[in-house]
């Protein structure tokens, strides 16, 4: 039996159309909801029944794709992972993610984020090439545990919206890029450390972090970017003092 949507809640949604609006403004919608409805479903109801021009990103509806990040009551959240019933009686403010330029309504420009992820060489660089005939790269459970947490990142950017240092200095590498860096750097099969350290050893790299920790608080996948940053502060610091002793592979 389906539950009847006999309760309503007010959604105050930030609207912005770059063609017609000089600046963003809020628009209120009264949305009927059932106890299993997410904020994303509320937005979909608005789009389907009131205003088809309402623009937002989504895909999986199950906290996997990372598309639907937005500020819900001023907190970075996944809209598909936030239930309307938990926000009752409302009103609920829905705005695009902090610290990113708005493209339209709830959609932000992700270019900067993508560039940052690319800058940390987010793939495995095998220590030494191994032909298939030699079999797979084996890994113990402990070796896997060293990076597993960081591999859960879904690139939702909530941590960037939460990070005051990224808000302050858009050049700062930011939390998820560091978590992703550590996902590969911490992998026993990987040999790309030197490359990655060089990408983040500057003022706008790991040292742009002042250990606020908001990233780890808001992450919907329980990734701990602050831990990744700390690990790399240590790695970078060791590299700073030991770089003269090390034979660097400059390939």
């Amino acid at each position, binding site marked *: 039996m389906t539950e009847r949507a006999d309760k309503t809640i007010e959604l105050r949604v930030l609207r912005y159309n770059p063609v017609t609006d000089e600046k963003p403004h809020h628009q209120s919608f009264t949305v009927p909801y059932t106890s299993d409805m997410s904020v994303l479903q509320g937005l979909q109801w608005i789009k389907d029944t009131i205003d088809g021009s309402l623009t937002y990103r989504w895909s999986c509806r199950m906290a996997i794709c990372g598309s639907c990040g937005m500020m819900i009551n001023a907190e970075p959240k996944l809209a598909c992972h936030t239930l309307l019933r938990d926000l009752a009686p409302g009103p609920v403010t829905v705005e695009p993610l902090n610290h990113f330029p708005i493209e339209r309504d709830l959609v932000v420009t992700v270019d900067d984020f993508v560039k940052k992820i*690319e800058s940390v060489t987010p793939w495995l660089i095998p220590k030494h090439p191994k032909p298939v005939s030699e079999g797979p790269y084996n890994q113990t459970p402990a070796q896997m545990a060293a990076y597993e947490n960081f591999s859960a990142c879904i690139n939702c950017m909530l941590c960037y919206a939460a990070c005051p240092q990224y808000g302050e200095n858009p050049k700062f590498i930011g939390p998820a890029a560091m978590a992703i860096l550590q996902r590969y750097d911490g992998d026993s099969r990987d040999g790309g450390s030197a490359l990655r350290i060089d*990408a983040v*050893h500057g003022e706008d790299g790991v*040292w742009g972090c*002042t250990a606020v920790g908001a990233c780890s608080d808001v992450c919907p996948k329980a990734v701990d970017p602050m831990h990744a940053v700390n690990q790399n*502060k240590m790695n970078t*610091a060791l590299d700073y003092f030991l770089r003269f002793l090390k034979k660097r592979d400059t390939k």
Partner: protein
Amino acid sequence: MPHAPEKRSNAPIFWLLFGAGGTLSALFGVGLILVTGFLAPQGIGIGPDALSYENALAFTQNWLGKAAIWAVISLFFWHAAERLYLTLKDMHVFSDLGRRLLTYGVAAVVTVATAGLLLAIGF
């Protein structure tokens, strides 16, 4: 290569001093305050002359005692300096050079002065 390497920051020096001071203060800070500030002066659990002038002098005249005093005083300062530096930076107070002088500068002066005084006390 996907990017040009960024200029290396010299933050590791200050961060390691900060870390060392933080570890030291977490391990010994409270204990030291308790012993030197309350227990010893009140004579609770410790002899009343444990921190007498003669004992304190003997402690500072031993090279190990000197090292301990130097580490505790200077590293505590480096720890506080880093925290204050970042706070001032976040609050946009002073120029970067001003902030560095006010925080790291003070810690550096205290480090050198403490070493000087400890040496002046002699062995």
